């Protein structure tokens, strides 16, 4: 019971932060190579429209579910300017499987390798949180953050995409 007070303080403090609508975080730019070796610069992508960034691992079942769902949403909203980056944070030791995995699953979105987890860390990700995704507005503001994925979450993500693309 001696930990109850600590737990209550932490929950209240973070609830206070999370309920604050005045917060508008801005994303930090990065440059990375996709699987074909092309240079991907976030700020350049943002010039074309909003970008969703999703961190995933090949052996994480929820990540795979999310990637499959997002592959469909990406195809659907790409013509409206929606962009999607799948950032793989597999340990560098298992990265050799990523290309094969992406190819076999016919993912059409851009995949970036972040084996040293620099982009992941910069984005506030930790190993306890996977999958982890962010939706960035054209101005680079983080308008949606998501921990985890379960069936049906694609509907909520789709609503966020429609909102940011003004398709409602």
């Amino acid at each position, binding site marked *: 019971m001696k*930990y109850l007070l*600590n*737990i209550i*303080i*932490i*929950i209240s*403090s*973070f*609830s206070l*932060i*999370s309920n*604050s609508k*005045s*917060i*508008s*975080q801005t*994303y*930090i*730019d990065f*440059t990375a*190579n996709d*699987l*074909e*070796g092309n240079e991907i610069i976030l700020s350049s992508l943002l010039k074309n429209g909003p970008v969703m960034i999703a961190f995933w691992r090949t*052996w994480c*079942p929820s990540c795979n579910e999310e990637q499959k769902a997002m592959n469909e949403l990406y195809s659907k909203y790409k013509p409206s300017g929606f962009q999607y980056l799948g950032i793989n944070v597999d*340990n*560098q*030791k*298992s990265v*050799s*499987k990523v*290309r*094969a*995995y*992406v*190819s*076999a*699953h*016919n993912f059409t979105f851009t995949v970036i390798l972040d084996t*040293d987890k620099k982009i992941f860390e*910069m*984005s*506030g990700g*930790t*190993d*306890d*949180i996977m999958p*982890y995704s962010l939706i960035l507005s054209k101005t680079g503001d983080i308008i*949606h*953050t*998501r*921990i*985890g994925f*379960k*069936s*049906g*979450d694609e*509907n*909520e993500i789709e609503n966020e995409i429609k909102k940011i693309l003004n398709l409602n």
Partner: protein
Amino acid sequence: MLTLISLVNLNIYSQNENKLKAGVNNLLRYGNGKETSSGLSYNKEYFEDLTDVKISTKDLSAGFRFEMNKPSELGRDFKGISKRYVEFTNHDNFDIRAGSFWEIIGRGLTLNSFEQRQLAFDTGLDGIRIIFKSALNKNKSIRFKSEIIGGYLEYSDYLKPERIEKYDLKDANLELTFFSLLDFGFNYVYAKGKIPSGIYETDINAHLPEIYFSFNTSKFQLFSSYAHKRTEISANDLFPVSFTSMGDGLYSSVNYSIKNIGISLEYKNYRFDLTTPDNQSTERPTKALPFQNPPAAVKQQTTVLTSRVPHPTDFNDEVGFQLDVFYMPGEDLSISLNGSIASRHYSFYDADTSSIVRFSTNKRNLNFLPSLKNDFSPYSEISIESEYYYSDKLSGKLGFYYQHSITYNDFFKDSPDKKHYITMPIEARYNLNNKISLKLHVESQWAYNSLREAKYQNFSNYFTSFFITRSPDLAFSISGEYTTDKLELSGKNAWLEAEASWNINSSNIITIAFGSERGGLRCTSGICRYINPFNGFRLTIQNIF
């Protein structure tokens, strides 16, 4: 703690006015119940809170981690700032970071420092890292990246947290890229270490040069890395005469992918500390060092029962292969095949005809290949998994795994520990509507252990879990496990646990679990530890801002 949270709040709220960017994430874990160890049950309570705070401007960022692990679930108790850093980057070609960081070079044969909180494993460095990269010609077809690291590492043995290894580490790395096709890398690690072995502490100097290259096209990739390790051991009470030990490691991977098929083949040949069985110890100062962590090249297990019987890779003495094949014959069906084989390099014999045991190595020419003979302690595994989407509402998974291992006993040659496991997971998912989903996951495992008395050699394990989720905010699961193993360490044969999680919003999750967990060996990235059975209550709160 309250002060810290208030400070965090101030930082968050100040970002708009000062154009600072701030990020905070918090993980709180609390548990209260009974843990079983060596057949004895005792009260277990832990409270862990970890807050990562990051503040940044365009080029400059700084952050810290506040940890309160008192008492900790695994590892050492700690309260205070455990990580802190300041970093400058021009987002183009220069980056400098002072403070705490983790780093991996190549595939980690000489340097792969990382944190695995679930196993209380952390080889993070405290020091300085400078990265500079640039092009060598106008069209940027030839590029280089150079990196220098100087840092201090205090490694708490994840199996014996009170045993601390200390390293003063320096690293220089150069990578050259030609036409985005060919990469060459050179790395050199020099580490001065103090390694405790019982009541003694041994000073070592380790030199680890490494060379690696990769060839990348859109369909074909090849990677290969070779590392050498030279360890100089200073004389002390444990080692009366100073000596030098040599070791090395090789890792290669080949990938080929076409439209709906992807193939990946990995080869490992780790000989960082080849020694006879009477010399082997996890505290040997000549062993592969904790900041070395090459690819395990065995399957990362994702089912509950197979992940309980993983293969712990021996980076000191192991050779083997892993083959992965992904195949999608149609949009609704995917098939994944995996096979791996590994063994130690040599077998041994007692070269002393007296009662004293003194091992010698049986030399063999094919030591670059694994052997399936008993005296090579082989491990082999084959698995096939298939996932099928019958409709938008109904989908399922089916798998078959066979894991086989022999742990050879060089002292008692007639009693090798042979184990095999056949595991079949089946999963069905049904979406009731676009919010509510049901999932039933069932695993059956048939096990054999040769070292046991005949009537206990065969046993089986069964795991079932049922999930119901309501997107986007609620998830509930109930899991049950049953074993016919009469020698189960916890003395139980059934476990039942319920878990509920509530997403306050998409970035704040509260999870509560209550019931009993079987525990067992858990491995991630080649790091394995035994997790004790637990019966009680767990609370986890994850927040990201």
